[in-house]
Structure formats: C-alpha cells, structure tokens
C-alpha cells in the first residue's frame, strides 16, 4: 500500500462523494424526497459502472487490470460514489415512520437491481469485445 495508492483513493473518493451528493440531490428535487430515489439511482448506476470496469479488467486487461486503475476507479471513485450507510439510514427511517412496505421495497429492489446492474455491465463488455473480434 503505497503513498501514491492512498492519494489515488483520496482524490477518487472526493470526486465520487461530490458526484453522489450532486446526483442524489438532483434526483431528490426532481422526483420528491418521500422515497430515496437519489440514493437508489446512485447505487444502481455505480453498480453498473463497476460491472463495466470488472468486465474490462477481465476481458481486456492492460491498464484496466492494473492496481492503479483499481485503486482510483474502484476503491476511490466508485467506492466513494455508492453508499450503504445512507441506504440503511433511509430504509430504517421509512420503517420507523411506519412506511414498512416502502422500506422493504427499497431494500429488496436496491439489492437485486444492483447485482443485475453489475451483470449487465460485465456482460455488455464481454459482448462488445466479442463482437469486435
């Protein structure tokens, strides 16, 4: 764990967090704050991108399989961008307010859609690289 790696994670985390704050605020203002669509959109989109990145690392390799790329994009940018803590806070607050069905929907839909989004990104890269050959 080098000094350079720490700097990459710090810078990536900064911009990932800022992007999350911007997008979740934007989506919240647009679609209302009664359901946490902002965090939902952030997590699903982040899962899709990490699927793309994992696909590039596995099927293309090169820079994408390198440690620096992983530290900056996966650990920094995407790790800082997506969040489980806000997801738990919002799900629990809905449940505590008596909105049990909405809380359950948020938990199940976020979890399932995020894994599907990873697969979608991962196989999209496999398909595109396969088609290019």
């Amino acid at each position: 764990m080098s000094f350079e790696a720490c700097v990459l994670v710090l810078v990536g985390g900064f911009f990932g967090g800022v992007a999350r704050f911007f997008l979740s605020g934007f989506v919240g203002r647009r679609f209302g704050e009664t359901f946490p669509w902002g965090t939902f959109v952030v997590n699903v989109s982040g899962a899709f991108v990490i699927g793309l990145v994992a696909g590039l690392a596995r099927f293309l390799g090169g820079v994408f399989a390198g440690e620096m790329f992983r530290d900056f994009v996966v650990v920094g940018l995407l790790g800082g961008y997506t969040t489980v803590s806000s997801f738990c806070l919002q799900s629990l607050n809905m449940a505590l307010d008596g909105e049990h069905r909405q809380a359950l929907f948020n938990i199940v839909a976020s979890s399932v859609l995020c894994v599907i989004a990873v697969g979608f990104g991962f196989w999209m890269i496999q398909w595109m690289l396969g088609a290019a050959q």
Partner: protein
Amino acid sequence: MTNNSRRRAEVWRLYLAVGCGAAIGSLLRFLSGFIIVTGFGQSALWTTAFVNVVGSFVIMLFATLTGPDGRLLVGPAGRQFVTGGICGGFTTFSAMSLDSFMLVFEGNMFRGALYLAAVVFFALTAAFAGYVLAVRINR
C-alpha cells in the same frame, strides 16, 4: 453579501464537506482492506462486510444524535461531513454488488445470494443498534 451569493457559498461548503469526508471515508475503507486482507489474511469479502456494517451503525448513531431531538448541535455542513461524507465514502454498495455477482458468476449462486442478504441484514441491524443507542443517549 447578497442573499443569493450567501446561499451559493453555503452550497459550496456542503459540497466541500461531503467531498472531504468521502475522501477520508474512502481512505479508511482502503486501510481497513489492507489490515483485513494483508494483515489478517482474510478474504476481501470481509472488508466490504466490515465497512458496510460499521458505517451503517455510525451514520444512524450520528444522525439521531444530531437530529431534531438530539443532544449534539451540529450545523448542516458538519452533519453532511460525517453522514454523506465519511460514512458515505467508507461504505460501498458497488463493491458489495460486485462481490456478490462474482460469487454467482463463478458458479456459487447460493453463496452470492447469501452473502448479499447477510451483509444487508447485518448493516440494517447495525443501523438499528446505532439508533437505539442514540435514543438512549438523547434521553
């Protein structure tokens, strides 16, 4: 300063608070991974589980302590620094989804589903524990 420029300055402060917090949270997650994987020789799956459970506990504890009935008086930027910043940067939904997907991809369908369900369950339980503790402190 006009009202408009004051509001803009407040928004910039919030962005800076979230960005700096997320940078610190991400570095703490990176360090946790180093300790768990290199130090204790455990799978990286434990890192993702650890950060998500701990971060969910802390966010609920802090948010309830600084909430309307809370004991701690913290401004909007300070609140965002810890919740959206440090906790948001420390926890990660993307790595958790990728870990789960990779288990499924490698043929362990059941383990992938179990891993995701378990991390989400324990993160929510930890968040609830943080809430209960904060309500006790607030009383």
